[in-house]
């Protein structure tokens, strides 16, 4: 999960990383009020989850009340990459001398933590890395050892820091590392980290990406999570206890494992058919759970067909079949159901389906072909 810039800055500030003074505004009126405290010399920054906000015109600089009013109005009427702007961060303007990038994330190849710096602050780090790799320094950190002073030598070197500057930046790196670990982040970024003309070093923009698995131990960060920004079907699924992935076709794939679901998606695509969504039942689903899953996917108005692909290990095919059978009356006539059952208690499952008037395929290709026929037949 991602949080907004103003929330990331709250986390920074609580952990002792300096940020510009600023406040959130939810309306033009509020924007003007907050700007007044800063004598109207402010940056108005739209708060959205998508990237490329700056280029899209989502950040404006004002110096009078009138400008603030006009700019806030413009921003609140904007959409950035399809995302509505509902929140503005009204922030004191900064006099910038140098801009850097500082981030921490996983080295996916070595599976250790990695500290990333660049002298090209304020730019997209992936673009910088692709175009001018020499401007990006990466330092792997043994997660058992944790961040040590020696890890900071390459930072100072890459930035040509003198001792004074090293002394300013070292604690920021350490605090960012603590946020990364203690707040269960998949990614933390300060971009740009700026040296200002007054000699101070501040985080002018920031990004935190939280680990969904660690929600239970991050109650505070959980409050920062903006459910409105979540894909509706995925939210419905999560609230019902499933991982649902919303896609752009019209078949709903219900499966007892992510791999099997992805593979079903691949097969459908080879036949030119796209999925509306994927729902993972995980292992050991009961009949009730299956019914709940059907309820979920029926809320997706794109769905024209539901494809069950089950290879039972812990999952029992009879439970699945019982769930499907019990759901039938809820499924509108224009939505077809096709099933594939394999593995544990397959025979029992097939029997239950037959009683409900359904057939069960035994392999993946067979069930996919059935869906194809159903959908193309219905056109």
């Amino acid at each position: 999960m991602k949080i907004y810039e103003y929330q990331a800055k709250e986390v920074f500030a609580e952990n002792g990383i300096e940020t510009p003074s600023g406040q959130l505004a939810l309306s033009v009126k509020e924007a003007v009020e907050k700007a007044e405290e800063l004598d109207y010399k402010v940056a108005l920054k739209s708060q959205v989850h998508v990237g490329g906000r700056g280029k899209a015109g989502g950040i404006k600089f004002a110096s009078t009340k009138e400008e603030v009013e006009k700019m806030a109005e413009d921003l609140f009427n904007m959409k950035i990459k399809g995302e509505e702007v509902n929140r503005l961060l009204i922030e004191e303007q900064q006099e910038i001398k140098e801009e850097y990038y500082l981030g921490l994330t996983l080295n996916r190849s070595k599976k250790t933590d990695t500290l990333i710096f660049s002298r090209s602050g304020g730019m997209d780090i992936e673009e910088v890395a692709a175009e001018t790799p020499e401007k990006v320094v990466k330092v792997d950190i043994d997660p058992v050892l944790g961040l040590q002073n020696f890890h900071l030598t390459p930072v100072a070197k890459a930035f040509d820091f003198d001792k004074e500057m090293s002394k300013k930046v070292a604690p920021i790196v350490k605090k960012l590392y603590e946020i990364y670990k203690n707040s269960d982040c998949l990614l933390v970024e300060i971009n740009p980290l700026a040296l200002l003309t007054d000699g101070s070093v501040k985080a002018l923009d920031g990004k935190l990406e939280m680990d969904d698995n660690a929600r239970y131990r991050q109650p505070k960060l959980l409050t920062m999570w903006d459910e409105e920004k979540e894909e509706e079907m995925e939210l419905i699924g999560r609230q019902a206890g499933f991982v649902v992935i919303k896609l752009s076709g019209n078949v709903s794939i219900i499966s007892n494992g992510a791999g099997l679901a992805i593979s079903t998606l691949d097969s459908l695509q080879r036949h030119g058919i796209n999925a509306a969504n994927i729902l993972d039942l995980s292992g050991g689903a009961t009949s009730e759970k299956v019914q709940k899953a059907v309820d979920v996917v029926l809320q997706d108005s794109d769905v024209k067909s539901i494809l069950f692909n089950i290879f039972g290990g812990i999952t029992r095919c009879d439970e699945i079949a019982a769930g499907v059978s019990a759901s039938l009356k809820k499924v509108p006539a224009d939505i077809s159901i096709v099933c594939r059952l394999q593995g544990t208690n397959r025979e029992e499952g097939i029997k239950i389906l037959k009683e409900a008037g359904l057939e069960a395929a035994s392999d993946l290709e067979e069930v996919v072909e059935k869906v194809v026929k159903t959908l193309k037949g219905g056109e």
Partner: protein
Amino acid sequence: MSIILDKDTKIIVQGITGREGSFHADLMLKYGANVVGGVTPGKSDQKVHGLPVFDTVKEAAEATDTDASILFVPPRFSRDAILEAVDAGLEIVVTVAEGIPFHDMVYCREYANKNGCTLIGPNTPGIISPGKSKLGFMADSIYKEGSVGMISRSATLSYEAVNNLTTSGIGQSTVVGIGGDPVQGVTFKDLLPMFEEDPETEVVVMIGEIGGTDEEEAALYVKKHMKTPVIAFIAGEAAPEGKRMGHAGAIVSPGGEGSADYKKEKLEEAGIEVARKLTDIPALCKKYID
């Protein structure tokens, strides 16, 4: 022969007094696995399926000379349980839990590495050496003793692939589920050398998926070091960029990094045949089996 697990491997079950732990301890015993005990703190007065229950892994290890542990422990307690098993000196630790926090696994993975422990998982059905032993919860009836080694990021796809093999009359030496998380214990390139050294394994099947760089690194390893033929399958060619496809690790980065096409290209460059469909795997394997 087989890798990691054979019939003598002494196994304990962490969380044995729990519903899942107890259920699968029984199934493992029935499969013939050498399960010698279990661990649940505070429950050492109990027995489960006739097996002794210990309060700590250390006590279990000292009493039973344990080699391996399988954890039926909820995600939020998994870090402590994994570290306990590694600290107690066990050689093999399998953790099946789904949803272990990222940083917990980053730490556990490296701690296991440093202690010379083969950590398998999380989010895995475990490992099975058909006809010998089972350290996991897979439905064992579909497996058959034989000479195909298999490594899979996805549980269900490994069932699918194994079933295709077995119904084609082809058995397996060892099937290892490495799990679908972005950070896990052993991965393809840690297991390939073990299969290379196993005289029983005649061909290795890698079941990969989108996301990460594990398949690419495995490809490099195969190209440089493997004589045993390797076959691969990659799920997720239809996955859109930027979506986590169920498995936390299954995501194509914006820009296409980690895509199925890219992986297939790298695998083929390393001389690895990539099966288009799971049902193609038996025929590809047959070419290499006596």
